[in-house]
């Protein structure tokens, strides 16, 4: 019975959290958004005291049910373990706790957190690890299926479905997610909850509390016949029947043992005789390994930056010359935009500052999944790997959208309303003269000024010798060509200008981020 309740709740949580990552329309978040916000580590970062207290109390009363029900990565492991058990019954055995590894990982995790190595924190954090798997591997499939429905709806003249872009947001993050999925799947298939009881920092933290939980599975030694059925079905490998002991630091209260015992010798109760839980010690080794990781992450990728700058210069030579119109019909080829090298990366309004964002973001990809404009994607930079950043080649940060701030469970993107968003300066636009259409093609343009939501761009006459640079058609001498002038005080860095700039592959106007956001 207890087991069935656990499985039912776990599946509900698992499906709903997964849907959060799949639903690109953002409608589910109004109903299910809280499921991301009660995840332990994001709640810690968001300083969500209510949730933390509730989860601590939950663990102190019931043990690590969090790991069995709420944590999507845990439930995913149970799914793989269940499949593994189908292949081979009674496949687990008791093993000793690998305490040194657990504490080392937790220590490293905390050091990385303090040192601001967001990528390492994001790598280990269980909810985010699952989020990456869902958004990188499940979401594309969901998107394709949706697009199929959209195609059918279009045929039927229905507006029930609309198609969505499915694109690879970041190759490194995709690879990390895929490797993680395979690794965890194999571990879970063979040994159940190995990950949770050796690597996962949240699991290790909760295990401190779980030792003292009020309710726990207790073996009645009078009834026990030492058949080892429970031990061999314990995915946490924490039941030692030889000594009739359960390591409660590793037990995830899955209730499997209770259901499996032929003699009903195990029950989920408060142990009356207070069988002292086996405390395992040794925290000293935690510190040494941590520094190495931090050092590695320190190196900044200067070569790549240099290459991008060079290619930016080279690409300016390529111009889309307006072709002479001889016949009618047809569509001009549109070149893809290339991401410019931004001196300072862009993070969404609500992120407060780059430092704040790096400290709080767990890289769960929830904001990346809901961004309807193709703006957010995981960064590839080593220090911020998997934490999102913005770029405007596919769309821009539209004034009516505050989705990322609504969904962020970790407080990395603080909730803001539309008015606040439209007055938050996350960066400013820079003009690149040699790409600008009036300079390059001799055509009137002003598309940036026309679409600037804050009116920060005005058009001023183009004067001086630059007037006659390439691409000019005959008969333009009379045209009063205008170029954009950005008022950086009013610019909020939304990227409308960059995205809608007709110059390709590099826009003639692009946004550079600010370290600290401000209100204009």
């Amino acid at each position, binding site marked *: 019975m207890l087991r069935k309740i656990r499985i039912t709740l776990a599946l509900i949580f698992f499906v709903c959290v997964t849907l959060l990552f799949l639903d690109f329309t953002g409608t589910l978040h109004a109903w299910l958004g809280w499921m991301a916000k009660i995840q332990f580590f994001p709640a810690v970062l968001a300083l969500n005291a209510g949730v933390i207290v509730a989860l601590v109390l939950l663990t102190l009363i019931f043990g690590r049910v969090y790991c069995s029900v709420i944590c999507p990565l845990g439930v995913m492991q149970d799914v793989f373990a269940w499949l593994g058990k189908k292949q081979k019954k009674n496949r687990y055995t008791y093993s000793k706790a690998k305490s040194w590894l657990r504490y080392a990982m937790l220590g490293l995790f905390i050091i990385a957190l303090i040192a601001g190595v967001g990528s390492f924190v994001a790598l280990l954090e269980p909810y985010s690890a699952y989020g990456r798997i869902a958004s990188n591997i499940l979401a594309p499939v969901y998107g394709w299926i949706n697009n199929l429905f959209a195609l059918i709806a279009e*045929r039927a003249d229905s507006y029930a479905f609309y198609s969505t872009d499915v694109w690879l947001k970041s190759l490194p993050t995709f690879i990390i997610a895929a490797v993680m999925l395979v690794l965890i799947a194999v571990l879970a298939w063979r040994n159940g909850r190995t990950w949770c009881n050796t690597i996962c920092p949240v699991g290790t933290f909760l295990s401190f509390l779980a030792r003292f939980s009020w309710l726990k599975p207790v073996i009645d030694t009078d009834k026990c016949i030492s058949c080892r059925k429970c031990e061999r079905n314990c995915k946490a490998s924490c039941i030692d029947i030889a000594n009739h002991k359960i390591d409660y630091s590793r037990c995830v209260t899955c209730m499997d043992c209770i259901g499996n015992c032929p003699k009903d010798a195990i029950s989920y109760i408060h142990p009356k005789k207070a069988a002292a839980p086996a405390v395992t010690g040794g925290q000293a080794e935690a510190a040494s390994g941590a520094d190495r990781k931090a050092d590695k992450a320190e190196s900044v990728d200067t070569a790549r930056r240099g290459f991008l700058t060079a290619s930016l210069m080279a690409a300016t030579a390529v111009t889309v010359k307006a072709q002479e119109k001889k016949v*009618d019909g047809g569509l001009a080829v549109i070149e893809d935009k290339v991401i410019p090298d931004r001196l300072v990366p862009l993070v969404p309004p609500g992120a407060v500052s780059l430092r704040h964002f790096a400290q709080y973001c767990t890289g769960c990809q929830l904001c990346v999944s809901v961004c309807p404009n193709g703006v957010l994607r995981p960064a590839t930079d080593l220090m911020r790997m998997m934490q999102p950043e913005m770029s405007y080649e596919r769309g821009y940060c539209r004034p009516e959208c505050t989705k990322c701030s609504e969904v962020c469970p970790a407080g990395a993107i603080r909730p803001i309303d539309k008015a606040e968003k439209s007055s938050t300066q996350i960066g400013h636009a820079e003009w690149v003269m040699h790409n600008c259409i009036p300079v390059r093609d001799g055509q009137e343009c002003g598309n940036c000024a026309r679409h600037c939501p804050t009116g920060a761009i005005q058009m001023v006459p183009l004067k001086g010798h630059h007037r006659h640079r390439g691409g000019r058609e005959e008969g333009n001498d009379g045209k009063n060509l205008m170029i954009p002038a950005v008022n950086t005080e009013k610019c909020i860095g939304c990227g409308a200008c960059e995205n809608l700039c007709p110059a390709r592959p590099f826009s003639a106007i692009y946004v550079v981020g600010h370290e600290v956001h401000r209100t204009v």
Partner: protein
Amino acid sequence: MEKKNDISRREFLKTAGAAGALSLGLAACGDGRTAGSASGSQAVPSGGMTYRTNPTTGDKVSLLGYGCMRWPSVGGRSAREGNEEIDQEMVNRLVDFAIEHGVNYFDTSPAYCRGTSERATGIALSRHPREKYLIATKMSNFAPSTWTREGAVAMYHNSMKELQVDYLDYYLLHGIGMGSGMEEMMARYFDNGIIDFLMEERKAGRIRNLGFSYHGDVKCFDWLLERHDVYKWDFVQIQLNYLDWKYAKQINPRNTDAEYLYNALAERGIPAIIMEPLLGGRLSNVPDNIVAQFKERDPQSSVASWAFRFAGSLSGVLTVLSGMTRMEHLQDNLRTYCPLNPLTDEEFQFLQDTATRMMQFDTIPCNDCKYCMPCPYGLDIPAILLHYNKCLNEGNIPESSTDPEYRKARRAYLVGYDRSVPRLRQASHCIGCGQCSPHCPQRIDIPAELHRIDAYVERLRQNTL
């Protein structure tokens, strides 16, 4: 038992397949509509085409002329859409069917279908005896590089080569009045002596009839007609339909009412060839209440047939061109013109009243002719304008967020917009360079319309209407 099940399943699949094909066909009809309508049940008459006589050459010209501007592409759409190849097999079939049913006038141009129409038309027609068909093509020297005498003459010779003929029945100065009007017309035909060359060619018999097609600046039209005694125009091609008859100028102040154009030709006894009898399909895709009125009067006839009867009923009309992309268009038009049932005075008045009602809808007068394309910055101009018109006709242009159907209309507009125009080709990318506008035969101020639509879409997206 098992066998029976099997059969019923097969039958079911067959029925489902047929239903699927039908709905696909209908869906395809919905967008690329240019002429005619698939009013299935009626048979296509095998004879009885109405013919008109050309007063100068005595040609018997079928009242239905085949416009070769919208040949089907392999994807089933008009070859003007997208970048697909012309479906030559289908073109052959359409041409065979047309000739078999009495159509003998084929109108093309070196510019049509991204420059491939003449060749496709030539391939299809060369399979028939030369005396079975009349060919019309044009001097489409729009690009300034072809304004030289050599460039223009080369274009003329190339047309004969592409069409696989040694004489042309009808030859037109293409798009008189477009662009900058008089200035451009002079540069294209008069300053370079091309008009004299063409008149020589007419004398030599390689051009049997010389005329011009007119769009836009009425000064050019008047100037050419004033010199009729010099140039002896054998025919003139004008845009005429029941909407343009009295409202062309109201739709766009730079255009001229068809009534004026037709009467000016009739006065001089110059036969008129009619283009855009359906306004690029707009007169077959009319608002629902207008459809109801047509069907109330004649439930058997298509909406398009009214427009064709209007154009064909004028006695000074030599032929009415229709760009029939699909077999259904051709069949429906054959039903209308085999033979023509001329409009009564009462019906003529009814169509004028219909036009008045239609004017109350503020649609953009785009005919999807794609003269504006390709836009050098990649926009799909006609698709943007047509989506706007479609939503206007279907009542999906909410004026404020308090409209009762606001949410539904907003969704229909925005989702439909992304479907019919890829994001990168939408109005938000119009830089306003204005290179398109001079090419528009309807003289739409394209950048202004695109910016207006973009501003509207922006308010819809932001939900601030």
